[in-house]
């Protein structure tokens, strides 16, 4: 299995820099998921790897060979498109065998490759149908099958599941995982859905505004995000952010005052703090606010999302409001591992435990992690 190396790739259109020097390396057989908000450059990067875009500078290497200026069909990559991109005038078998046909391979070889791919994807009985006669999930399988037939060095997926409904999507996630295990191929997968990233990736690349924010395994990124962007991007619901001010600093230890509520929290910084009087952002994942320890802050229930066994409660914590969060009003999201009777205005509380908080400096870098991590 070959490796894929992206080396300082830049791409600009007229006045807009879509990729500002991106580098990462996918080891052989790795399943790399690129995530980021829309417009972050993840699709541009994927399309550049495929050869559908020409990069302005940098190198794209497969097994050490720079393919950045090769013809798309010569790069040894196959791509699965968001809208399947099946040729409507060809049968499933023709769709899957088209690339080999264009490459001038003998018919027997094409048939064998198509058969093998169809078996892997369990679409053998659909081979003679036109794409129009297939369901969304079947179409997606054919699109994947078309990629498999080519036995490429690298598989590229461009948000392949976004057109499927929720149930089908989770099923396909599992199938793709199985496929990856079976083919042991190097795969690059683009999505804006962080659940897909978390569940499928062996490594996640978080892109933002044309730059890589962080790469690492899903748990690495979830537990130790290097900056506020990554911390906020991964995890549902998102991390709660509170804006605070440093009131005291001794060595790596600071006291932070949060607005409205008169509490001081002692944090242990990993690097330099912002200094006394400096702004600091505290981050708390919803599950970190529902514990038994820490400072209790009273509030009222605003919204309850009951998930059955557990619940997500949005708490109106008075003056302690989150910013940059999913709920506009600044309610604090708290995860409770038990059922909650939903009642608007019912009194409740959250607990801020300094050992379970993240802290971010004014430049967004993470300066403190929860103690357990």
């Amino acid at each position: 299995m070959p490796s894929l190396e992206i080396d300082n790739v830049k791409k600009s259109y007229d006045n807009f820099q879509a990729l500002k020097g991106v580098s990462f390396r996918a080891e052989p057989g790795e399943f790399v998921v690129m995530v980021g908000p829309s417009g972050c450059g993840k699709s541009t990067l994927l399309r550049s790897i495929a050869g559908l875009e020409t990069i302005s500078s940098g190198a794209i290497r497969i097994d050490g060979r720079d393919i950045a200026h090769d013809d798309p069909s010569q790069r040894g990559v196959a791509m699965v498109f968001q809208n399947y991109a099946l040729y409507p005038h060809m049968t499933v078998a023709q769709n899957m065998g088209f690339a080999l046909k264009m490459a001038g391979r003998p018919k027997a070889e094409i048939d064998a490759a198509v058969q093998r791919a169809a078996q892997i994807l369990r679409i053998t009985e659909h081979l003679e149908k036109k794409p129009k006669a297939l369901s969304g999930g079947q179409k997606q399988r054919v699109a994947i099958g078309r990629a498999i037939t080519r036995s490429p060095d690298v598989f590229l997926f461009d948000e392949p599941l976004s057109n499927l409904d929720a149930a089908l999507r989770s099923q396909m996630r599992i199938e793709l995982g199985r496929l990856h295990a079976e083919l042991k191929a190097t795969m690059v997968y683009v999505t804006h859905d962080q659940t897909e990233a978390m569940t499928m990736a062996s490594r996640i690349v978080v892109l933002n505004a044309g730059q890589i924010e962080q790469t690492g395994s899903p748990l690495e990124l979830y537990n130790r995000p290097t900056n506020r962007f990554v911390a906020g991007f991964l995890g549902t619901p998102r991390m709660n952010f509170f804006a605070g001010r440093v009131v005291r600093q001794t060595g790596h230890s600071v006291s932070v005052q949060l607005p409205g509520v008169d509490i001081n929290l002692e944090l242990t910084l990993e690097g330099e703090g912002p200094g006394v009087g400096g702004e600091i952002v505290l981050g708390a994942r919803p599950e970190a606010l529902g514990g038994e320890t820490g400072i209790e802050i009273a509030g009222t229930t605003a919204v309850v999302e009951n998930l059955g066994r557990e619940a997500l409660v949005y708490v109106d914590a008075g003056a302690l409001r989150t910013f940059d969060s999913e709920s506009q009003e600044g309610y604090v999201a708290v995860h409770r591992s038990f059922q909650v009777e939903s009642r608007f205005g019912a009194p409740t509380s959250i607990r801020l435990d300094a050992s379970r908080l993240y802290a971010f400096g004014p430049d967004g870098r993470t300066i403190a992690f929860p103690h357990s991590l």
Partner: protein
Amino acid sequence: MSHSSSRMLDRWMSAGMLAPALLLVGVLVLIPSVLAVVGSFYEFGITSQNWVFVGLGNYARAMADPIFWTALKNNIFLIIGSIITQVGLGTLFAALLDRGVRRGNTFYRTMIFMPVIISSIAVAFVWILIFDPNVGPLNAVIKGVGLTPPRLGWLGDPNISLYMLLVIAAWQNVGFQMVLVLAGLQAIPKELYEAAALDGAKGWRAFVHITLPGIRNVLMVGTLICIIGGLKVFDLVFVTTGGGPANATQVIGSYTYLQAFTLGNMGYADALSVILLVVALGFGWLQLTLSRRG
């Protein structure tokens, strides 16, 4: 394959794919247009080799030529008239066929569309016969029911003949507009009507609030076709009235032909052509901006 050579190849391929169309349009449409513009600054005949430069003289002459204004007015009359009759009736019939009548739709549609495929020369000949004041069936019918037909004839009375041209044009083109609109109507999802019915809009109000907005683009295309047809109209006038009586039904197309080929004023005819060109480009520009907005 290196980066630059593949790009060059692509460029050559693009140029090669564009070339045939551009060559044809360039040589046979654009170069003659430029030549017409050049010619409009001169006075010369078809057979005359003696070109006299007159600057904007031909344009000044057009501005002072009452027949030019009549012709332009007639073009505009035909454009507006055909939009009203053709797009209007086409929409009406399409609406009736789409949601009104339940039986005989195919029959009606086939019949109404039929004249579209008949050559306009053929159409003109048949209508000349129909409109003939002495032996035509129309007058026979009119007299048969005790009415008096127009004294100067349907195509001979300057007050009537333009309307008759509209009738002939409508006869031929309503079917086309109808099919255009019908396609637009059938593209409107049925759920929209159901939703509108729930909101209390039915019949006429559903037509105004659902149907018309839904076929807006189609109506624009139909209107554009009428405009272009009304600007370019020639055959119909040339064969039925010849621009007469006494230039009353002259349009720019036929008047250009008259000036160029009957009277031999090629420079003046070129100037008329250029004016028509400018008007046509104006409408084209209008259409472009309108469609961009839409």
